């Protein structure tokens, strides 16, 4: 109904003849206004909400990042000083390294596993497909805080399940949040657990959109399943894969809840900032510390720029390798 309405031509603007009853004339005017302006009204909610919660905060953050800004006190314009400060800020680089480390540990195995699982689920021979698809997606339904809390318990030093299991095979308990590699491993395992299923489903949807006759033709030509995967599935999956990679990049660069809860809510992320991510550093500077809100805003913009650059890089990489 709404479709036909939007394609309807504008009502012919007949000059209002004086003998027409005023009610009818008014109705016609309303119709004209309706056809002209209602579409804007219908799309307005998105733009209003985006403007209020997307665009405005971005512009405001950019403005703040050019100031020495105290959340509850004075602010003074300092140009790009906050950005130059970023380059010599040891803890910013530390957070950057942590973010990329956790990102690599979570995204790469996750996407490989998702690809493998999607291929498995795509097999025609598999029974109870819907069940497996549902099951694999379930972790994504669980709230991130719940995941982080449960994993935090599993990775506890004293009473944690993993240390208990390690103890069974004679390995000394690991102080999971006390070292870089172990904390990164613990955090990326949360991310992997939660997002592998999601990516699997998207890749699976991409795989199912590949025409079956390609496979049939390949089979007739004598290509085995492995060859079919490399020569048909992967190249045809390119757009989907790009999408998944970019989404994972954005998610990975903004990693916040998992490491924060893993640190029991301490924004430093470990006593020597072993797993403080960029988003945590932004929060520390912009929100925890009241007098460095401007610098926190600069960190936020830095994260934005990094996401753009990394996404572009990934995009090019995926495009080239799939060619």
């Amino acid at each position, binding site marked *: *109904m709404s479709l*036909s*309405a939007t394609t*309807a031509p504008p*009502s012919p603007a007949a000059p209002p003849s004086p003998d027409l009853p005023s*009610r009818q004339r*008014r*109705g016609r005017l*309303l*119709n004209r206004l*309706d*056809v002209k*302006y*209602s579409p804007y*009204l219908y799309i307005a909610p998105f733009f209003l909400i985006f403007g209020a919660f997307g665009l405005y905060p971005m512009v405001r953050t950019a403005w703040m990042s050019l100031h020495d800004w*105290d*959340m*509850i*006190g*004075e602010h003074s314009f300092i140009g790009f000083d906050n950005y130059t400060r970023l380059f010599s800020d040891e*803890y910013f680089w530390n957070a950057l390294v942590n973010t990329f480390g956790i990102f690599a540990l979570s995204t790469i195995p996750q996407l490989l596993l998702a690809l493998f699982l999607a291929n498995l689920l795509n097999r025609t021979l598999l029974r109870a497909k819907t069940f497996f698809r549902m099951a694999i997606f379930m972790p994504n339904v669980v709230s991130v805080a719940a995941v982080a809390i449960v994993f*935090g*318990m599993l990775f*506890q*030093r*004293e*009473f944690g399940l993993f240390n208990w299991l390690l103890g069974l095979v004679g390995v000394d308990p690991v*102080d999971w949040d*006390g*070292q870089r590699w172990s904390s990164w491993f613990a955090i990326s395992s949360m991310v992997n657990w939660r997002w592998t299923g999601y990516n699997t489903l998207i890749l699976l949807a991409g795989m199912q959109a590949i025409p079956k006759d390609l496979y049939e033709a390949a089979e007739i030509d004598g290509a085995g399943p492995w060859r079919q995967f490399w020569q048909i599935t992967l190249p045809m999956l390119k757009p989907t894969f790009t999408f998944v990679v970019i989404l994972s990049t954005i998610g990975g660069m903004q990693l916040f809840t998992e490491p924060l809860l893993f640190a*029991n*809510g301490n*924004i*430093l992320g*470990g*006593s*020597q*900032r072993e797993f403080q991510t960029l988003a945590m550093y932004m929060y*520390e500077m912009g*929100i*925890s*510390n*009241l*007098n460095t809100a401007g610098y926190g805003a600069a960190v936020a913009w830095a994260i934005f720029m990094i996401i753009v650059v990394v996404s572009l890089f990934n995009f090019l990489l995926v495009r080239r390798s799939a060619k």
Partner: protein
Amino acid sequence: MGHSHTLAWRDEHPPTTHISLTTGKRGQRMSVTTRRTRLAAAALAAITAVSGLAACGNDDDKPAAGEKPAKLVVDTFGEMGYDELVKQYEKDTGIKVELRKTAQLAEYRPKLVRYLATGKGAADVTALEEGILNEFKPNARNWADLNPLVADHSKEFLPWKWELGKAPDGRLIGLPTDVGSLAVCYRKDLFQAAGLPTERDQVSALWSDWKGFHDAGLKYKQGSGGKAFIDSITAVSNGVMFQGGGDLFYDKEDNIIADTSPAVKNAWDTATSMADISAKAQTWSPEWSGGFKQGTFAATFCPSWMLGIVTENSGAANKGKWDVASVPGGGGNWGGSWLAVPAQAKYPKEAAKLAEYLTNAKSQVEAFKAKGPLPTNLEALKNEAFTSYTNEYFSNAPTGKIFGESVAKIQPTHLGPKHQAIKENALEPALRAFESGQADKAKAWEQFTKDAKTQGAF
């Protein structure tokens, strides 16, 4: 209003146009557009209604100088025990008082920051916790100066507590409410098993100073087959820090002196010396909360508000196994609050009067009886109801007396603007890094002094 608007629109159209879906092309289009018109009208009406509401919201903020307020709002966190007091105040003055409680300090602080940053929304009387108060002090203009608004109470409160309520520019921001007086909570059963005395007086006598405390810890470790004595060394630094008085991380001019301050060095040395008897369980971590039940440590430093947390973490099964002894080296403090009046309050004088009422000796005793915050008013500290108070869970320890004596020994201390940030984000992480063996003592100290400079900059 919005609703009647929609109805009026609907009435403009004869009902036939609504349902003439089958009367040919023109009729059909008509009906569609009519419905769309109605939808659009409804949407418009909804928007007007919402903006109307928003406008109504703004109308509330009409300043009315000089007259008596109809209502005052009080913002508190945790349990400050003001429910009955506020009712009494309403009866006495005829001013309605609304008590807005926030359970967690972590939720309370962002709200306050928002009120101050936007200049509206703050309550007339606002409770400020120690860390928050210090953090807000450099921007003292956000708060009303209570000096001209209330009578001089400087002699009525613990002197060090009263001093902390003042901003660097001399204005009085807060009237003292409670303190987090320090004691040691210990497990009698574990002490007994390890061959230590269990009577609280004998236990207190074990550690008249910190060396004695460490010796007791070593003895416990020996007697218990290598078990840890205390939860963490950061708890120790918390205990030591306030005892000497004087400057901590900042000097009187608010320059950072974390690397040279004798009080800080003393706290550092005492804390690091305890690493061999520590369970390395970070306060508030799952290892820590779980440790109470598991008996991973036999003693911990208890500010008065911590008793409830120990009770909760240890569970009903351990009732009567805990007791309270005095803290090594005399008194100590960890936490505590003040009542302040934001500069944006419309009735600063009446708000100050209410804060004055809530912090007077009688009210502090009532609040203590209701929810247990420790008085700071000298008269309240001497009150029979307070001094005779015992805690059932902790083997009927005379907590009122123990905590009362502990706060009385504290010397006035100057806390700089970012005291809390330096303590939590520089000192304690460095201590933990040392405690867990990630850094040696020299390297941890280096980490602390460097972070203190960045954290403390303002």
